[in-house]
């Protein structure tokens, strides 16, 4: 494992879903810069693991060997040879967890082996499903094959929820997906990543984007994963303090005179009760974390 040994192993959260469902957009928002190419068509990259640090990026092949990589020339990468790319960033969120951006499923040009070999690294998953075509059989079938220990440690995000044009429509899609995925996710959250970044002037609109609820759920998930890894000892840095620049809200109506933005910190202070957690405790205990 290649995280900073001083901090110990951090939970790894994988971003998964159909290709073009918004995974890379989400990753870029989460770490506040754009290291990953975002396109309307499938991005054919191997899994990318993002950890805290300032090291140079490298890629890891199927035998575990490292080799250098040029992030500006990803096109020349031989995706069959590379198991994953490791990159570093000093974004706050990465102090609390690693992110693993997986290639999308259902891409005819990418074999499922590519992410299947990486899924063991994940402690939790953010599954992105395009809200207007949410939770299709191709997604449900992949999810059914993943270890069910992931289920209470994962969030289902209905991305681009703004494309559902009315409140009723959004609710109906949410209700259907919730029913179909009952017991399969910690929570199911509609979110409009585009609106979350654009609506920096209007708090009400920003809140509607689902960003606020998402951050709250994410923080709570990270806290849980950290607690599980460290054997429930409180971690040195509480996840509740973290800043996620991409998800910072506009000036709130209750903002103080310094014009502070609403941060996830404030958000996380309120007691979070996840929408739905399958069972009160995880069904199976994950093996004790191994230190790098």
């Amino acid at each position: 494992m290649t995280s900073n040994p001083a901090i110990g192993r951090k939970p790894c959260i994988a971003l998964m879903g159909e290709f073009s469902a918004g995974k890379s957009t989400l990753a870029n928002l989460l770490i506040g810069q754009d290291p990953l190419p975002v396109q309307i068509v499938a991005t054919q990259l191997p899994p990318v693991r993002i950890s805290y640090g300032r090291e140079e990026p490298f890629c890891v092949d199927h035998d575990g060997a490292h080799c250098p990589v040029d992030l500006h020339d990803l096109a020349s990468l031989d995706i069959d040879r590379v198991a994953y790319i490791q990159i570093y960033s000093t974004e706050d969120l990465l102090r609390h967890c690693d992110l693993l951006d997986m290639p999308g499923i259902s891409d005819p040009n990418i074999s499922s082996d590519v992410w299947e070999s990486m899924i063991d690294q994940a402690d939790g998953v953010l599954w992105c499903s395009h809200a207007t075509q949410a939770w299709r059989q191709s997604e449900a079938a992949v999810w059914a094959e993943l270890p069910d220990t992931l289920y209470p440690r994962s969030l289902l995000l209905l991305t681009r929820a703004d494309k559902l044009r009315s409140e009723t429509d959004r609710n109906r899609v949410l209700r259907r997906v919730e029913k179909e995925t009952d017991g399969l996710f910690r929570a199911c959250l509609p979110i409009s990543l585009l609106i979350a970044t654009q609506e920096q002037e209007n708090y009400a609109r920003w809140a509607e984007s689902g960003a606020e609820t998402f951050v709250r759920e994410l923080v709570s998930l990270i806290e849980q994963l950290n607690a599980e890894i460290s054997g429930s000892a409180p971690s040195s840095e509480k996840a509740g303090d973290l800043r996620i620049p991409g998800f910072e809200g506009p000036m709130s109506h209750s903002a103080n005179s310094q014009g502070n933005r609403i941060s996830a910190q404030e958000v996380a202070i309120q007691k979070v009760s996840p929408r739905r957690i399958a069972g009160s405790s995880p069904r199976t205990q994950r093996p004790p974390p191994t230190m790098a």
Partner: protein
Amino acid sequence: MNVVKHPMHKESEAFGRSEAFLHASSGLLRGYIERLEPLHEALRLLIDIGEAQTKRTAARYALQLERIEPSVTMIGQIKSGKTTLVNALIGQPDLLPADVNPWTSVVTSLHLSPKEPSPATSAVFRFFDLDEWDKLVSGGGRIGELADRAGADEELSKIRAQVEMMRTKSKARLGRKFEALLGTQHSYGYFDHELIERYVCLGDDFDGEDAKTSRTRGRFADITKSADLRMQQRGYPINLCVRDTPGVNDTFMIREQITIKAIRDSRLCVVVLSAHQALSSTDLALIRLISNVKSREVVIFVNRIDELSSPQIQVRQIEESILKTLRAHNGPIDAKIIFGSALWAQSAIQGSLLAMPDASRDALLDWAEVARIVDAPTDDPHQLLWELSGLPALIQALSERMIAGEMNETVRQTTISTRNLINGVKVADNLSARTNIDSTSLHMPHEQILEDLETLRKRHSKQLSSALDDLIISLRQRVEQSHNSFLSRATDALAKHLEIYGEKSVWTYDPSGLRVLLASAYKVFGGRCQAAFKRSAAEAVEDLADVFHRALNLPHEFFSPSTPIPPRIAPPVTLGQTIALDLHGSWWKSWWTRRQSYEAQARNFYDLIRAETGSLVTDLVDDQAAALKMDVFELFEDFLDEQTANLAGLTKSRAVSADDVSRFIGIEALQERDRALSEAFQTLERYVA
């Protein structure tokens, strides 16, 4: 529907907005139909000049042409917008129910026709029978397999479980009706959104205030196998069938199964994709499933481009990516790819440009800068919106394929048959032989000819006359038989009556049984007279042709006069006359009671009935039948006289000029008709080339 004026399309001034849009977009089809005019003309000619058999055949071909109904099937993943697209294609934005949750559950065929359909607007919903339900399972998992979907190997058992669950559910909901409905159908003389909703969409599978479930919506959807809706759409110049299917890749995999079955019957398919996900493995599987079969065509419609942040840039990227994937996986790289938005098409038809969401409008403006517009509108922004929706391009692509496929095939087939029919008529006319005549001289003396003709005339007259006499005799026999059996039945009945009721009670007996027997005997007689006439006429023509041949040494078939139609058989009115037996009233009663003894009564009545009904019999044979015989005979004599006189006239002088012969055999009319036929034959060349 709001009526708008479209100065560009004069003939469509009375059209509603949607009709005008469809009309403007279906020029290719209209052009094709116009080019078929010569074929129609040829058929009209055959109907006009042909014999009865030829007429019937030509009329059948004409109907065949009129009934051409090319079809197109929309398929794609759930919620790609198939139903919305179908609604736009048929010009009825709100007809089929579209929704944000998986919705369409039944293959729905819309049959459009430019004329008022006959039978009129209607809807037929067919239900599964038990067998078909099980068949839904068989062949399951095809898409899953082709798309390499996770868990594809277990899909079959999942589908089976879903079918079982659906069966249990609908049984519980429909109760006793369930069994009775299976294998049957519901038909309506109308349809609307609510009616369709009852049959083609399952509705939400969860409860709560937002849920779109109700007692009627989807009430029959799970047992409905197919829906066929017939309606008029004047915007298109031909009959069209547009088919909507349930989405594939739904977790409720039965939808997918239903759709796969529908693909089998569809030659032309539109695979509807969502712009936000270009060609996933499911889409690829679908496309390959369709295009693997020869002579199947696929058009790709990338829907929802209104949801792109910049269609200008992204459409190009999507297209490249689709092509790349098709190439990499041996897909049909020549498949037509069209970009558009069913939502824009819907807004265009509804005239609701201004009600569009901001993002959609921004995308529209962005797309407008680069989109290729065929028919730039002058004054109506909705027309531009229609252009940008991709629907005109889609209709054009579909038209091209329909014409090159189904339509050309039928036209080719009909043309070949029509040409054969033309050739048949020409061979029968044998014009080439007939036009080759020179002046010709008599090969036997005129007196001999006259004598031959006279013998011939007498012989045929006599022949028919005696044939008709025989017919009269057999009619008389038959009629008498009927009469006698009637009399004995009547007297039996009288005896029984007297036995049971005594002589005081009035007896009646209905003579209609006799009338029916007589009428049918007369009908048979009439038919035989007509047949005898035709037989004699044909024989006489043969003999006349023989004289003609011997006299002028010209081929027999040059002599082919048309024989007159035998006289119609008038209904035997004499049977209608009133006889004593018909009078149940006072006359009969008093007559009855005046008779005294049992003996006397029986004898008297036999005589009375015999006398009364006897008049029916004699009138029928002696008046009606004799008159018909005379008619037939006279018509035949006239015909013989006319033909013998013609021949006698032609052979008056020792040498007969070519002109005279030509005139005699009506060569001009024949030549005219041959010219018309040859011309028709020639013009049809283009449809078979």
